[in-house]
């Protein structure tokens, strides 16, 4: 029993990332009808927002301390980050420590702007072109984005630690009545899951309870009629693209402490997120979220040692296997709507 709970928990954090990326992909697909292969790159850019902020915060002024000397006998150069100079040592180091959560605030405007620029500058011109062209051009864009990041940040993963207070692990087993030490789970992964749940909740609440969201949903169902009612649906859809970019970016920011960001992390996630979207059903938001968590948990179950000895290699292929089976038996995915992408 404890092993099962552990696997479910393990699957949840990866599943959260899949769900967030797949949610953004589905938003873009459902509103604009564009297959966005650059969505993984947006996830990667989000993670690098966290890296950038922590680097910015660490910019330091160099002062020479005449009273102390280094091992060569020269006066010691002391680097004091500006944050510490401005806010005093206590608040300053706290800000430095909490740079990843702070990066959420930093990433929202940046990812929004990137999303807007992408839609207005490039994607806009591809609405009327075949899906294959959209895939190809966004695939090219993904290559360009990741090469730019590689140029500025190098090819190696950049460790971006979580705040010290959140580094440890939670003994989850004790909470639900097992022996201590059976179900241990890092705090940060738990936070990632909660964060993802909140973001998903916000997206759904936004679509469900605001006028803007209502118009967007109406546009997803019947774009022309909404346009005929005198609503500028294109502008709203553009904003939804930016919104989806923010969701992907936030997923990336919070993922940075789990896996050190490197320039190709987006591509690794992209393939899986596409599989998730297709399994969930193209154009279905709840389907994307459900499939994300489902596949994440399935993947972690398949990597249990007992399962791997029973069917060797299953942990590597389970997601693809499930995708193939679902696509062949339920062509619209788990919760796909009728008439979406049925060419």
């Amino acid at each position, binding site marked *: 029993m404890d092993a099962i709970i552990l696997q479910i928990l393990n699957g949840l954090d990866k599943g959260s990332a899949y769900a967030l990326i797949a949610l953004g992909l589905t938003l873009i697909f459902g509103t604009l009808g564009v297959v966005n292969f650059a969505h993984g790159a947006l996830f990667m850019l989000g993670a690098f927002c966290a890296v950038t902020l922590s680097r910015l915060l660490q910019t330091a002024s160099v002062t020479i301390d005449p009273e102390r000397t280094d091992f060569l006998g020269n006066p010691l150069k002391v680097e004091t980050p500006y944050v510490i100079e401005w806010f005093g040592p206590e608040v300053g180091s706290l800000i430095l420590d909490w740079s990843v959560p702070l990066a959420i605030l930093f990433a929202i405007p940046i990812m929004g702007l990137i999303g807007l620029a992408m839609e207005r500058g490039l994607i806009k011109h591809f609405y009327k072109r075949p899906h294959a062209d959209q895939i190809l051009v966004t695939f090219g864009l993904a290559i360009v984005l990741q090469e730019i990041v590689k140029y500025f940040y190098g090819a190696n993963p950049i460790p971006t630690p979580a705040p010290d207070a959140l580094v440890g692990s939670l003994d989850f087993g004790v909470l639900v009545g097992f022996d201590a030490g059976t179900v241990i789970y890092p705090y940060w992964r738990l936070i990632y899951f909660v964060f993802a749940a909140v973001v998903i909740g916000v997206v759904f609440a936004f679509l469900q309870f605001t006028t803007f969201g209502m118009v967007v949903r109406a546009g997803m169902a019947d774009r022309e009629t909404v346009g005929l009612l005198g609503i500028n649906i294109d502008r709203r859809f553009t904003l939804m693209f930016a919104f989806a970019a923010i969701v992907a970016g936030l997923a990336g920011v919070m993922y940075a402490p789990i896996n050190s960001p490197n320039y190709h992390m987006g591509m690794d996630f992209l393939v899986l997120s596409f599989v998730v979207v297709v399994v969930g059903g193209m154009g279905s938001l709840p389907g994307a979220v459900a499939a994300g968590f489902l596949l994440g948990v399935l993947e972690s179950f398949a990597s249990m040692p007992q399962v791997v000895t029973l069917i060797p290699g299953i942990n*590597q292929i389970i997601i693809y296997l499930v995708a193939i089976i679902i696509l062949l038996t339920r062509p619209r995915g788990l919760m796909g709507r009728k008439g979406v992408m049925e060419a």
Partner: protein
Amino acid sequence: MFGLKQKDATLFLVVVAITALAPFLLNPFPENSELAQFNAGYPDLMQRFMIFGIFAIGFNILFGLTGYLSFGHAAFLGVGSYAGVWMLKLLSMNIIPAIIVSVVVAGVFSLIVGYISLRRSGIYFSILTLAFAQMSFALAYSVLTPITGGETGLQLALDDPRIFGVAQTADGSIPLTNFFGLEMRDGIEIAAGPWLFTLNVGYYLSAIVMLASFYVAIRIFRSPFGMMLKAVKSNQQRMNYTGINPKPYTLAAFVISGMYAGLAGGLMVAMDPLAGAERMQWTASGEVVLMTILGGAGTLVGPLLGAGVIKYFENIFSKINDNILYEWFSFMPGGLQDFFVTIIYPFIGKGWHLTLGIMFMLVVIFLPGGIVEGGKRLGRLFSRKKAEGGGSDATPAASPAE
């Protein structure tokens, strides 16, 4: 000629001439000159031009004709190379059985994958092929290690059986791949003044195979079967209404292009007998998509051109470093020199992927027909100007899109 129309025959002969003279054409700069690093006429690279040319020609038969975008073609190339290496290990170092078995195994594998994937179309088809390729990659990397060599890749060893050949040569090393005794590494070096040309057996063998597959591709493009495939691309529904089931045709195209990929994989191990799982990764599948689109999907020579451009970039362009750039701009005053080097540097050397990505995007956005269409547009521009200058009526240079 050769059962081809006049225009295709000319095209074919031009390609034959270029491939035959490639060792000379690709080495335009004298040895030891500053520009010698742009020489692409060394056997290893020329073989790669041919091999990836075959791969892209095959991919084009599927994507260019039927419009089905497969994101998993590298799996067939990988399976082909594994089969090829196994033949070299088990039978003999003659490359013919290796290549034949590669083609057959890749064909069977693509039949299975294609039969399942082709039940869906559009993006679902892309995802299905991608899923199959990623699965084969993951399996080759982990569980199938006894067959595939896992992370280290599959290599020849001294204790291989090689029942029709020798396990090891007299001096105790692994024998070289050969074509009935003609070793792939053999070749003639011609020194003409400061120039050095290498005529390599492996290159000419792959060139002949490439030309044969190019010829077959032309025949497929011009055959009734090819017309059917084009019909699948333009309007599948209408095809259904006329009472034709498109599926056998698309499946046949899929298997043919899978066999082309297997052929490329077999040739690859014939030239360099090792196979690794990374050949099957989806980025490798993405590369052949890039090649085909860049050159011009649905055209005859496009994939060849695309493969050439990408492999040239990968091997030559990527070697330029900032020192060389500084040399080039050394005629400028210091500040300006630094400025230009800083601007250009991200796009060359290790950053060649960036240039490739930008080029690819530009082609998809502005030139959906790829390099071939670019050439046609230029030609049209040119002939129109000429016609206007001569005062005669404009020649209808616009040829129907392939």
